[in-house]
């Protein structure tokens, strides 16, 4: 556990020196916080879905950038080679990258939600209220689904970066992978009656799937996967 927290400390410390990350983080929160003002009538099912989507998009934008960057930045700077010469176990290296990028995505979602609340309160014309959070369904999307999505994108993004050597390409592949794998879920969401029970079950199922994927990743991950030339 101490090795995992050591790696996580390093990843978090690096964020504060990463201007690109800070820019994407700020833009995602701002954009996904303000854009919901355009979704129209408060409380309609469509508005609820769309506002929930903006929170999910904030997570996706941040994690799809962060997860590959945590691997690729180390590869470009040759710090991976150093990391591989340390006693850090494989699970700490992989776990920290996935956990930190998922956590950062979740924090981005929560901050964008806060911006949404303030923006709608100030400019939405309907006064202060809890937006879709006032409904149990909205809370499932905001707090449950974003966590699932963050973890899922973090695992996929980390594994994509192990194979794709360039930041932009890794980002695109991650987003496409997420899009493809989310199709069945989104189709179900749009076609099935948006009941609390269905959403809760879907969120739990997605959560279990993401955790299973993360555990599988931990099991499959080998430190030599971090360096492309070692794969020859």
């Amino acid at each position, binding site marked *: 556990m*101490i090795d995992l927290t*050591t790696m996580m400390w390093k990843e978090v410390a*690096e964020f504060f020196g990463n201007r690109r990350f800070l820019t994407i983080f700020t833009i995602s929160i701002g954009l996904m916080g303000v854009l919901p003002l355009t979704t129209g009538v408060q409380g309609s099912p469509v508005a609820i879905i769309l506002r929930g989507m903006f929170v999910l998009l904030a997570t996706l934008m941040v994690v799809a950038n962060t997860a590959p960057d945590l691997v690729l*930045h180390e590869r470009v700077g*040759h710090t*991976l080679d*150093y990391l591989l*010469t340390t*006693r850090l176990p494989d699970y700490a290296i992989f776990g920290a990258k996935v956990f930190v990028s998922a956590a950062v995505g979740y924090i981005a979602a929560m901050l964008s939600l806060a911006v949404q609340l303030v923006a709608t309160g100030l400019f939405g014309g309907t006064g202060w209220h809890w937006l879709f959070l006032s409904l149990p369904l909205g809370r499932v999307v905001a707090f449950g689904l974003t966590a699932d999505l963050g973890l899922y994108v973090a695992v996929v993004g980390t594994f994509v970066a192990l194979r794709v050597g360039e930041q932009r390409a890794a980002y695109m592949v991650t987003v496409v992978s997420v899009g493809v794998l989310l199709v069945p879920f989104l189709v179900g969401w749009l076609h099935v009656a948006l009941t609390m029970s269905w959403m809760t079950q879907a969120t739990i199922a997605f959560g279990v799937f993401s955790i299973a994927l993360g555990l599988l990743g931990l099991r499959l991950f080998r430190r030599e996967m971090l360096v492309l030339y070692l794969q020859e």
Partner: protein
Amino acid sequence: MDSQAIECHGLSRRFGARMAVSDLAFNVPHGSVFGFLGPNGAGKTTTVRMLVGMLRPSGGSVKVLGRDPIVEGEWVRSHCGVMLDNVGLYDRLSARQNLDFAARVARFTVAQRRERVESALHLIDLWDRRDDRVSSFSKGMRQKLGLARALIADPELLILDEPTAGLDPTNIVMVRDLLVSLAQESGRTIFLCTHLLAEAQRICDRVAIIQGGRLVAIGDPNKLGSQGLPTFRLTLSGGDSDKIGDLSLPEDVQLSPLIGDEWRATVADPADIEPVVATLVGAHIGIRAVIPEQVSLEEEYLRLVGGERND
């Protein structure tokens, strides 16, 4: 404790069709400074990577501090301080944070970390730049910081790949003195890959020269060229190389041409130079000078690897 810090037997590594390292065999005794020399692409870095378990050997075996780095990689790495040719510092972190991370990896307590980081930064004279991001550091500063990071956990074995690359002469001397004191005073084993042959000759107890992935020479750096035998540099006149080559010299004497009129005589005993001189005089070859010499490591290195292309 095992008497050898590193033991390699028939160590090989293949990348596709290319053999990067082939059939390496050498031992590094505890507490010694071992120089690992060779041109770029000779296989030094691949060997280092196998020593720390980053790369699985294609053949042969390696033991580091008595353990197999593939089977017991975590143990081996926790007892080794490694500095690779690409130092691999975190540019987004400060000098202090880079060292603190290494100290955290070694599982030191907060107080130990603070003490070690501080003394390491003073040792490499970077205390005043401790909170500056490493991205603003010069190559020399990075090298020193990389060396400090390798030392932070007091490892039994230091594996250093070009630790003096990019350093100015003052810092080269500082690093050299540091390595000597680490080996002599603290009894650490140092495996040193370097291109600075004069430095290797000065500080290494033994050196190995690798070329094209194969070991081409190994031994005491001061005796490598002459296999430990006395040598003399002769300046001759009035004889062509064929004539000199055809001379009947005493057994155990080897006369080899250098540049121009210069020749090198390797003899079994210093007194054996006298019959060599007598033979040359008898053949009407003029002798302008006979000087006892020590074959430099650089000379031997260039003889062994100089003729081949560096890949």
